[in-house]
Every structure is written in C-alpha cells, then in structure tokens.
C-alpha cells in the first residue's frame, strides 16, 4: 500500500479527527490528532493498517506545550501519530489497552517529562534512581544540569 493510498485512507477513515497530515519523505507519514482522539486513532491504525508494532514514544518539550509522538511501523510505512497538550495540565490517555508493549515508553514519558498518563497499568518509576527527588523532570528544557568542575585526585591541578 503506497504512501499516497495510506494518506487517502487515513483522511477518509479519521475524517475531522485529523488535525494535520504530512508525508515529508517516502514511507514516512506524520499524523496529528487531539489527545482525546488518540486511542480511537491508535485502534484504527492497529486494526486496519497493520501497525501492531509500536516502536517508541518520543516526548518533546516545545516550550508552552508538550508533544508525544507515537512511532508505529507497519510493513508498508512508518506512521507517526502526534498529540499536543498544554504545559499547564499535561495529561494524555494511555494506549496500553490497545498495545500492551506501550507500557515501557509511557512510563518513561511520565517520568522524564512529568506528564500524567491516565489509565497507565503500572505508574512505577522507570530508570531514574529511587532516590531521585520528586518533581524533577530531566528531559524538560527548563531543567538545567550544571556539570561539576572535574577534580583530578592527587598531584597539581
């Protein structure tokens, strides 16, 4: 199924839910939906477009809004679903019901950006250490890390 065919079908199936649809490169399709339409869009992609394989979810901090890009990969093309939500109430629905493997990436999203993923089966912390202070979200742009001055043990500086 070529890219153009996929784009046409997506427009037809999702209708008004599609806020933005781009095909910048061969076998690359970017689709933007509102957070509330995320789960139906993902279910449609899994059932009709054979995108059962979720590669990963990339969180992006765009200043006043957050953005989560869900990278699906079907044998035909790489379809990326994108949602934006304001920084004030960063909530996004969980797609673990549709794709069991997504739990991995949703927890990283939750931990690194401070988003709350509603309906996440296991909100445990991911790869940040247990004694990592609450409220610190490293991948946010405003989280600055000052590298300590390198001290070489022994001898002259």
């Amino acid at each position, binding site marked *: 199924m070529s890219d153009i065919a996929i784009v046409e079908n997506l427009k037809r199936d999702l209708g008004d839910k599609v806020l933005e649809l781009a095909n910048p490169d061969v076998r690359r399709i970017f689709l933007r939906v509102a957070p509330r339409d995320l789960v139906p869009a993902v279910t449609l992609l899994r059932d009709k477009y054979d995108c059962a394989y979720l590669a990963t979810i990339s969180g992006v901090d765009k200043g006043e809004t957050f953005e989560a890009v869900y990278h699906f990969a079907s044998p035909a093309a790489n379809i990326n679903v994108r949602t934006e939500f304001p920084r004030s109430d960063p909530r996004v629905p969980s797609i673990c019901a549709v794709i069991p493997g997504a739990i991995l990436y949703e927890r990283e999203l939750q931990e690194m950006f401070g988003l709350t993923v509603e309906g996440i089966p296991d909100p445990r912390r991911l790869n940040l250490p247990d004694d990592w202070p609450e409220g610190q979200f490293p991948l946010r742009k405003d989280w600055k890390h000052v590298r300590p001055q390198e001290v*070489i043990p*022994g*001898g*002259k500086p």
Partner: protein
Amino acid sequence: MKIAAFLPELLRHLFKKPATVDYPFKKLEVPKDFRGTPFLNPDMCIVCRACERDCPAEAIEITSVNEAEKRFRMIIHNDRCIHCAQCVDSCPTTPKAMQIDSLFEIASDDRHKLKKDWVYVRAVLKPKAPAPAAPPPAAEPKI
C-alpha cells in the same frame, strides 16, 4: 544428532600452534593508520580553534599565555580523549597541524601524566595572500 560432533576439530587442534598471543611478551603490530594519541606540531598551527570546537570529549584546551606576543598554550587531555581523530579532520591547515600517532599503550596511574601541553608562538603565515594573516573566516576564536 551426532555424538561428539566437536571431536575431530578438537583433536586436530591438539598439536597446532595456539591462536592466542602471549601479549606482554610478544606484541601484535598495529595496522597502518591506527588512531592512537593526537599531538600538535606547533609551527603549523594557526590557532583557529577548529579542533577545540569539534572535539567531542572537550579534550583540547587552547589558552592564550600572553596576548601581545601572540603566545598560546594548547593542552591535550589524553585521559579524556576518545581517539576519534576528529581534530585531525577539522584542522584546516595543510600539512596538518594536528596529527595522530599509533601509540595505544598509554595507561598510567596518574591522570596528570596523560596531559601534554605545548606553549608556542602563533605561526606567521607565509605572506602568500595579500590579506593580513587573519585566522580563516570559518573559525571564530572563542576566548
């Protein structure tokens, strides 16, 4: 399913020379352009700081000892260096001021011994171009 499928191979190797090399006593020679430790030949350097800017490990540090006589000092922190030879590629001079040798046994117990530094006067460019010997536009020195 063959019993003792590995037997012929094992017996054949019983009296062959072992493949392992007795390293500290017998050394393997290193291929031609192996990436060892970067070093500077100061007379070629035009202090354009391309190497310092492009070094992924921030292992090159150029400080000016004395601005008037254009004396500079470059320190190569060989303990931080990742031996990628990007500094050699980014060096705009021909023949290259930054070069890399093929020395790989550089372990030492004190990191200070790994730091090498050169103090040099900035080379006066041969007046081939009428333009004054300004550093090439591509590099903006970051003092």
